[in-house]
């Protein structure tokens, strides 16, 4: 069992030179007992530089999350032929800040019979789990990514699965019926859709050959292609599942206000509520980042290396980083826009319909996709269209064409399978069930009515 | 060589495909029939190729020499030179020299050289001690292999079995057309074929027994094929149960065989049996000490009698006619029922050493032949009449075996297979086309069918001549040879032979009479088919489809389609020519070779009754043959006279000879005898079993009470609380660790006189890389 070791990839990117020299200079002023066991390079690499990165990331992402709320309101306003927030600041740009302040200074109510510890803990769990994931996202090449661990994707999945606890505990600790129902709904929902997400990611792993987020991007970079072409069915399943995973409409059953008032956060108010709120939006950012990384090439855009090579040596890395971060942001934004668009267009699923969608549509689709993708990969390998060299795939344009076509064509067997599974379902073909129901209002059976006597 | 193993494989494949998938995959009748026929055809082709290959192999001198060598070694074992027989190692050991019989050296130039194809070891049984016969006290390895043996006898059998079966399958496609469970029928037929070939090709008694039981099963399933006919189910059960009686004998025979010979392989058993002396004649032979082989042979014959429907186990065969006609043709005429003959012929060395058994076989055979023939005279159901004819012919075969003319018996099996299968298929054709419902079997509602079914009529006439023994049809040669051999039997005294011959001769006439009667009633005389119950209002015949409206009166019997008439023609042709394969050399004086005789010679033991060389044309034989042909013709004429020219006479005759008629019509009261004296007695006996019940129950209850009384103490521990149990478990774990570890603790913490452990244990560990 010979294993091919992957190309070594740094878990932490090295700090810039200026930082190292700065730390070295700082060391002169520090007491000896502190500096004796630490090398300045290490301190710079492992402590100072990551902290700086984390700080920057937090600021950027928090701002992004804040403005995501604004964006959602703006986009929804456009969709609904409204104007949207426009009073606080130019174009309503200060609206998030105003909302934040409002929520901060509101009274923080803890219900009398609530389990106070857990009630307090729940939003923190949600928020922490949403933000911890940000550490492993590949925002860009080089300096733009904080860390690169070899189980990056698994880490994200695990942590976001812990995030469910926030909702469950929040609902439970409120000691109220609507929150409890919301919590039950959402825990069932998230556990179910996590399975679909995990399975659909497995099919993507066949091409990425690694869990590492940077490694996934590098895999697409070395091929010069985005995996969405190879994994189109998987991408679709992923998109639908993550919408459910983040409790967004049309899967927002946990907080369906027309049914459960506010769902799991009915009893939350003030800042605790805003923490849940932020966590939800941070989760959106995270899943869109995963989608962008897995399927849309992460920070990689075809041709960016070509552009960078044309630039002077000194600016090359900086330019690459800049381009990468921008591309990543745009891709995330595109997926986020899709989320918002979906939310303001679709009505809400019912609980059983949601479960049916998860278990009878997405799950079989993901499973079938694993089998199909693996088969396609093996076929491609046997045809000599793809080679694995040092843990990295290599293929020519024939291979890319083959996998693209095969990926698209694999939609058909998957759809056939879904058809076969759900054929007997009551809600399989509502259009067909409407044969007894008029197709549109214009075809309502119009009776001339009883004429006046 | 491994072609042999393919022969049973194809029908098995057909069984699996048709039985498991045909309905699910929605195969049409054509596909199902094609699969079944193709499988049997493939089986036939394989058999032909295998037999051809074998015939070349058997003539090889080196093979012959090796076979003789092995035979000699085996015979040395059985004659008890004090060396335990061990099939695995005997070739390596030095065979002790033994006095060879002079007649043996010169008697048979060729010995049986069977192909044995072993697929796997089926029953590894370990070492067992032999308890009977010459080698009692020795040990032997009980090892039964799943092996197929192709020799001259089984080769002949598989050829005609697959050949006839193919045409019967073909016929069945037409006959069973429109049946709701068409696939099931053909699956069963293929299962039967697989089992029959297993029976014939099996290299040891147990393999044969598998086939033996398998054909029994298939026969059961096929007799009871019409699930809605109650009498079919009863007949199936009857056949199964009566066969069990025979199988019981066969099983005992197998046990005894192993106890005597230490093996169940035919080749070894027969080779060893040849070395044994002949056993005494008479009742003295009926014990294991003086007549081991006699007992074995009688038990084998019990099995054979069950399978081949001999007295006293013959009544199931006529009842078995409740199954579809192709089944009757294939199983209950051509193949399965001849398995008994096959077994007796296969074990001919055993039988030849047991003259008592030979006489039993001959007497029962001739009795069956005569009784069945007399019953056949009065039957009105066409298939039952044919069934009694079959029983009668089987009796002939056993007579042949019983008088030592095994070749003639086997030859009659072959010819009988052709003409009787043809007759059954012909009757099937008549049944199929003779009434609107296609189920009318009563000959009283037939008549003058030759106008409507010319092909059926013509081909059946050929078979009629064959079964009546008219020269030169097939039946003549085989039956006449049996009769001739009976007269000149070397086994018994001349008087016994004469008596057997006389009865046989009489029976031949009766056969000719009732067969001609059957033909006359069916194909000649007045047209009576419009009187049938199908045309009566509200006829209650239950044949599954349940339509009770009377059929239209403008019905005419019609000829069957080609798929049914083709087998009739082919088999009819064989009924004409098959006899020439075994023309007795006594008749021709060796001018025309007796192929069957020469072919089968290696498997027939000639040590006791060596062949007399044929000097020339034996005119006595010709005389006898002429007499029997004339006798048969006379009886045929009588039948024609009674049933065509003067059809009112038989009724008067029956009135006149009332007791004889009743005896024949009621089948010699055999069923009644079984019902009253066997079944009734058993029922009465079982009433007395309640006492046993009481005793056994009391003992069991006593133990139960004891257990309950003793558990009064122990059940207080059972709190039913899961954690209590877990607590005790944990305590046990602790005690286990503590008990195991206490010496080690002691060693560690209280070192007395042992060297102390290294001072710094951590550093002694291997450094990390």
């Amino acid at each position: 069992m010979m294993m091919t070791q992957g190309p070594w990839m740094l878990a932490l990117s090295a700090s810039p030179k200026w930082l190292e020299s700065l730390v070295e200079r700082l060391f002169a002023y520090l007491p000896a007992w502190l500096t004796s066991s630490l090398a300045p390079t290490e301190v710079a690499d492992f402590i100072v530089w990551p902290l700086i990165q984390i700080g920057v990331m937090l600021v950027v992402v928090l701002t992004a999350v804040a403005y995501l709320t604004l964006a959602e309101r703006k986009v929804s306003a456009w969709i609904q032929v409204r104007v949207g927030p426009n009073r606080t600041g130019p174009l309503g740009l200060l609206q998030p800040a105003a909302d934040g302040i409002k929520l901060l200074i509101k009274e923080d109510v803890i219900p009398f019979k609530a389990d106070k510890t857990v009630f307090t803990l729940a939003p923190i769990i949600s928020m922490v789990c949403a933000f911890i994931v940000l550490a492993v996202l590949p925002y860009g090449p080089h300096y733009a990514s904080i860390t690169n661990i070899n189980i990056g994707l698994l880490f994200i999945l695990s942590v976001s699965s812990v995030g469910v606890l926030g909702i469950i505990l929040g609902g439970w600790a409120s000691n109220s019926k609507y929150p409890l129902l919301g919590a039950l709904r959402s825990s069932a929902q998230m556990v179910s859709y996590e399975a679909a997400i995990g399975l659909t990611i497995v099919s993507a792993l066949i091409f990425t050959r690694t869990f590492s987020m940077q490694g996934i991007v590098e895999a697409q970079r070395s091929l010069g292609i985005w995996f969405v072409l190879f994994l189109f069915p998987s991408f679709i399943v992923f998109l639908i599942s993550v919408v459910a995973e983040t409790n967004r409409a049309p899967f927002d059953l946990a907080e369906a206000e027309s049914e459960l008032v506010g769902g799991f956060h009915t009893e939350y108010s003030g800042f605790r509520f805003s923490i849940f709120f932020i966590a939800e939006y941070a989760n959106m950012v995270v899943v869109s980042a995963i989608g962008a990384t897995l399927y849309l090439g992460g920070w990689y855009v075809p041709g960016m290396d070509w552009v960078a090579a044309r630039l002077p040596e000194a600016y090359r890395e900086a330019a690459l980083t800049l381009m990468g971060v921008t591309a990543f942001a745009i891709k995330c934004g595109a997926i986020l826009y899709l989320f918002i668009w979906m939310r303001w267009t679709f009505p809400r699923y019912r609980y059983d319909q949601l479960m049916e969608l998860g278990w009878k549509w997405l799950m079989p689709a993901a499973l079938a996709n694993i089998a199909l993708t693996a088969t396609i990969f093996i076929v491609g390998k046997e045809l000599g269209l793809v080679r694995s060299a040092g843990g990295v795939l290599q293929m020519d344009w024939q291979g890319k064409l083959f996998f693209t076509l095969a990926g698209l064509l694999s939609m058909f067997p998957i759809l056939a399978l879904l058809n076969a599974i759900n054929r007997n379902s009551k809600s399989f073909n509502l259009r067909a069930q409407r044969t007894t129901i008029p197709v549109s209002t214009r075809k309502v059976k119009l009776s001339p009515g009883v004429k006046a006597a | 060589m491994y072609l042999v193993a393919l022969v049973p494989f194809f029908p098995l494949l057909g069984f699996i495909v048709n039985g498991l998938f045909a309905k699910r995959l929605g195969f049409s009748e054509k596909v199902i029939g094609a699969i079944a026929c193709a499988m049997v055809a493939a089986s036939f082709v394989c058999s032909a190729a295998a037999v051809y290959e074998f015939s070349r192999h058997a003539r090889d001198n080196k093979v012959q020499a090796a076979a003789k060598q092995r035979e000699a070694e085996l015979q040395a074992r059985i004659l008890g030179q004090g060396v335990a027989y061990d099939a695995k190692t005997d070739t390596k050991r030095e065979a002790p020299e033994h006095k060879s019989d002079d007649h043996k050296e010169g008697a048979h130039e060729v010995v049986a050289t069977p192909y044995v194809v072993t697929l796997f070891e089926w029953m590894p049984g370990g070492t067992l001690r032999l308890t009977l016969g010459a080698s009692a006290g020795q040990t032997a390895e009980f090892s039964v292999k799943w092996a197929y043996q192709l020799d001259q006898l089984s080769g002949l059998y598989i050829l005609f079995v697959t050949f006839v079966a193919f045409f019967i399958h073909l016929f069945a496609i037409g006959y069973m057309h429109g049946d709701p469970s068409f696939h099931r029928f053909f699956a069963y037929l293929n299962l039967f074929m697989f089992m029959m070939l297993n029976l014939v090709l099996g290299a040891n008694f147990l393999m044969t027994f598998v086939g033996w039981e398998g054909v029994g099963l298939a026969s059961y399933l096929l007799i009871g094929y019409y699930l809605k006919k109650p009498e079919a189910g009863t007949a199936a059960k009857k056949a199964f149960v009566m066969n069990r009686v025979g199988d019981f004998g066969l099983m005992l025979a197998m046990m005894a065989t192993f106890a005597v010979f230490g093996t169940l392989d035919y080749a070894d058993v027969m080779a060893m049996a040849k070395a044994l002396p002949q056993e005494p004649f008479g009742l003295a032979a009926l014990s294991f000490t003086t007549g081991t082989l006699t007992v074995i042979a009688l038990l084998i014959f019990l099995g054979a009698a069950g399978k081949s429907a001999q007295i006293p186990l013959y009544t199931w065969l006529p009842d078995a006619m409740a199954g579809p006609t192709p089944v009757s043709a294939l199983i209950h005429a051509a193949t399965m029922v001849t398995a008994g003959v096959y077994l007796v012929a296969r074990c001919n060395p055993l039988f030849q050493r047991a003259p008592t058994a030979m006489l039993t076989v001959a007497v029962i055979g001739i009795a069956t032949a005569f009784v069945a023939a007399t019953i056949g005279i009065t039957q009105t159901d066409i298939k039952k009449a044919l069934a009694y004819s079959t029983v009668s012919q089987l009796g002939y075969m056993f007579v042949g075996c019983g008088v030592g003319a095994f070749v003639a018996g086997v030859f009659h099996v072959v010819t009988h297979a052709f003409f009787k299968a043809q007759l059954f298929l012909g009757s099937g054709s008549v049944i199929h086309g003779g009434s609107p419902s296609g189920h009318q079997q009563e000959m009283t509602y037939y008549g003058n069918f030759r106008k409507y079914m010319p092909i059926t009529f013509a081909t059946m006439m050929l078979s009629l001549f064959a079964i009546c023994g008219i020269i030169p049809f097939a039946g003549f040669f085989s039956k006449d040879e049996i009769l001739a051999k009976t007269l000149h039997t070397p086994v018994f005294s001349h008087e016994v032979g004469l008596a057997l011959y006389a009865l046989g001769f009489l029976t031949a006439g009766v056969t000719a009479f009732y067969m001609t009667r059957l033909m006359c009633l069916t194909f000649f005389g007045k047209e009576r088919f419009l009187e049938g119950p199908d045309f009566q209002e509200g006829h209650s015949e239950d044949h599954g489809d349940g339509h009770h409206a009377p059929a239209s009166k403008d019905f005419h019997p019609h000829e069957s389609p080609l798929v049914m008439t083709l087998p009739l023609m082919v088999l009819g042709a064989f009924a004409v020519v098959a006899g020439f394969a075994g023309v007795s050399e006594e008749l021709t004086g060796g001018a025309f070779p007796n192929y069957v005789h020469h072919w089968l010679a290696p498997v027939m033991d000639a040590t006791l009754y060596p062949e007399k060389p044929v000097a020339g044309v034996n005119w006595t034989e010709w005389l006898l043959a002429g007499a029997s042909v004339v006798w048969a013709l006379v009886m045929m004429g009588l039948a024609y006279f009674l049933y065509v020219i003067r059809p009112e006479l038989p009724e008067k005759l029956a009135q006149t000879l009332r007791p004889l008629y009743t005896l024949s019509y009621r089948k010699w009261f055999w069923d009644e005898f079984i019902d009253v004296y066997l079944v009734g007695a058993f029922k009465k006996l079982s009433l007395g079993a309640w006492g046993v019940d009481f005793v056994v129950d009391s003992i069991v209850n006593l133990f139960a009470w004891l257990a309950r009384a003793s558990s009064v103490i122990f059940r207080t521990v059972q709190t039913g609380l899961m954690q209590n149990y877990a607590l005790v478990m944990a305590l046990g774990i602790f005690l286990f660790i503590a008990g195991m570890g206490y010496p080690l603790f002691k060693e560690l913490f209280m070192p007395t006189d042992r060297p102390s452990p290294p001072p710094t244990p951590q550093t002694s560990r291997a450094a990390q890389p």
Partner: protein
Amino acid sequence: MLLVGWEAVFFWMLTLVALFAAVFTVSARNPVHCALFLISTLIAKGALFLLLRAEFVAGAQILVYVGGILVLFLFVLMLVNTRSEVENPFNRQDKVGAFIAALVGLAILGAVTYTQQRGGFFKTKPSADRMAIENAKPDPNAPAGVISADTETLGVTLYTRAVLPFEIASVLLLMAIVGSVLLARDRRQEETYD
């Protein structure tokens, strides 16, 4: 030494978390709190797995245990009424049980101490299949701070050496699925489907 330096510091921190959380798991009155503490100890153990270079197992532990099993526990806790348990979370045999559990723990600790005092765990070196050793050993040339090939190695091991248990485990899971579906049906569903 498995861990030195900062890793040792993290080890002690995580050990304390795991230990105390385990204690509270057993002793907390409210079952939901028990579950929370169990989650804490499991996460701490996952971090310990990371220290032991078992990244994939750490991820799987958190994903399956915390994200799956514990969520299931909480789900069931919400479905069943547990208020009466809060008053008295321990049963009648609590003192004996605690004592025996402590005894078992002491015994195991003694065994560990004994083997350590006797000079390490297993003195026998594994038989020298050099090729396999080369494969199984982490690359000594790998620089610090480089991501390891743990997942790949584990995957290859799972699908080569341990493929039979792997299949058995999958069958076990299938049985668990079928069994739990059967068990969890309520009466109405049973009447509907039986």
